């Protein structure tokens, strides 16, 4: 606590210096913009197409044909009256739920188990990150080696329990489970790492006080640990949910959206419509809707995160 205050003290002392940098001359005032210009130019150069994306949804532009014309809202009307769109929206949402929820629960659980310092947990904190570093496509490749019905080790493993020929990604009944399993294998470590860091940063004294008061483990967890971990959980949730809503690599490598259209989420449908059916304008409507959903949810969650951060800082002092 003392440390924090001293840091703030330093900041205050530094304010004169900071304002001296910005209040002198126009060239000094413009300096930060000049320094940032290259970074902004490079990234905005890439984002310019984003603006054109909206424009193209009102055309019948196709990679197949040399000419195109305006068709008004046809693409948008087509999409909203198309049952496939609503199905894909459902896939995007259920995929996000089927991956984010288990990852958050596992992440929190394993991080709590890892919170006891000993040689075993110290090693685990290092090695459990490995799957997260592997490209999702490569992870899918690894799991295809494992779930292969002829040479896969998991088939042999399930045989021990009397299960034969579990279909994994080949059946529409188990495809979502298989994709979510791979997704969780890759990304649960992300939540574990973040929440572990959160647990390590918790102040010791409230927990000692709770111990003295004789609070049960569950009570301590509910009233102390969980509220104090909230900012960390929100960060993990934001990153995971945003990525899960638009997951492309794992589904594409696993089944390309199949079997049939079982795993055809909005990203995959956008890809299929644009690059396979060559309907460029139409494909953009799908991904724009996806972007809007992600944007709205992320705004909400970031707002909540900033709130919990303030609350945590409030109870802290």
């Amino acid at each position, binding site marked *: 606590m003392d440390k924090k205050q001293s840091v703030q003290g330093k900041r205050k002392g530094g304010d004169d210096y900071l304002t001296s940098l910005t209040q002198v001359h126009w060239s000094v005032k413009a*300096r930060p913009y000049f320094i940032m210009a290259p970074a902004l130019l490079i990234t905005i150069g890439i984002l310019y197409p984003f603006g054109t994306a909206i424009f193209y949804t009102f055309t019948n532009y196709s990679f197949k044909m040399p000419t195109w014309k305006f068709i008004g809202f046809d693409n948008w009307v087509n999409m909203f009256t198309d049952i496939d769109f609503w199905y894909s929206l459902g896939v995007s949402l259920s995929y996000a739920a089927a991956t984010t929820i288990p990852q958050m629960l596992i992440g929190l659980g394993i991080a709590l*188990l890892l919170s006891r310092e000993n040689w075993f*947990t110290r090693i685990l904190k290092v090695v459990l990150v490995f799957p997260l570093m592997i*490209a999702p496509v490569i992870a899918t*490749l690894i799991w295809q080696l494992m779930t292969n019905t002829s040479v896969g080790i998991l088939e042999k493993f399930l045989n021990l329990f009397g299960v034969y020929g579990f279909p994994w990604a080949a059946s529409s009944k188990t495809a979502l489970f298989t994709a979510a399993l791979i997704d969780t294998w890759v990304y649960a470590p992300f939540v574990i790492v973040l929440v572990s860091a959160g647990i390590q940063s918790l102040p010791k004294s409230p927990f000692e006080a709770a111990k003295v008061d004789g609070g049960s483990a569950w009570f301590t967890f509910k009233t102390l640990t969980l509220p104090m971990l909230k900012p960390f959980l929100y960060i993990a949730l934001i990153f995971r949910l945003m990525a899960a809503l*638009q997951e492309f690599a794992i589904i594409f490598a696993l089944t390309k959206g199949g079997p049939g259209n079982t795993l055809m989420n909005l990203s995959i449908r956008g890809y299929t419509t644009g690059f396979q059916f060559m309907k460029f304008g139409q494909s*953009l409507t799908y991904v724009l809707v996806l972007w809007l959903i992600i944007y709205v949810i992320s705004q909400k969650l970031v707002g909540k995160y900033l709130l919990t951060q303030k609350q945590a800082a409030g109870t802290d002092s």
Partner: protein
Amino acid sequence: MNAHRLHVAGKVGRNLLLVLWTLFALFPIFWMVLITFKSDSQMFNTTFWFNPTFENYEAVLFKTDYFKAFLDNIIVSAGAVLVSVVVGVPAAYALARFDFKKKEDLAFTILSFKFAPEILVILPLFMIYQKIGVYDSYFGLIWVYQLITMPLLIWVVRGYFEDVSVEIEQAAKLDGYRWWEIFLKILLPLIKPGLVSSALLAFIFAWNSFTFPLLLTSFNVETVTVASLKYIASDTVHYGQMAVAATVAALPEVILALIIQKHLVRGLSFGAVKG
């Protein structure tokens, strides 16, 4: 006595859960590396004991263009990180030290690139890239990878700059250093460990990128993530070669992760969790 038993049971239970998760997390990697040494003929009738062979490595690395994809991947990922470091680190410094209008808006705009659906960026970009002739080129890929590497570097490095006390800069200014001299000679050496780790993490992210190289390159430039798809798609029974492709693509990342361990949390959370 009873309480003691409960305590022991709890301890065993906890460790059991940890062991189970660890098996789940690490066995696939172990299995992948193991079967790289298995010949096609041993693939079906052996599990853990077999005569190891290097023929899969030979087949993938010398008889296909997988090694070229490996080199391509290094070129585009390292190129992307290099560009991001050169233009992103000064930007991070500006965000950390200067107070200017629209500062937070700019910072959040840069962050939002990370959350934009990649397909949404790719569809129009595919067209533009073909028009201006950078489709299927190192340049084109390095450029689009900025969406992956730049937000990461700017946000994480900004945090490292903010950790450095302003007084150090003031002292340097009194000594007659110009602002860019302070930046180059005083600040950069101070944040070097954090900067190097962020750059390596950005490299991992770029290395793992799949959607951009899949749709914005074809024959000239190929990354390992895209090249490995051939092994998934084909009905080949060369599972050993499939495993080699996965191993060659995955192991460099695991080794890098070990190097940057200490700074990993901070990088993964874009500076939100200091770790």
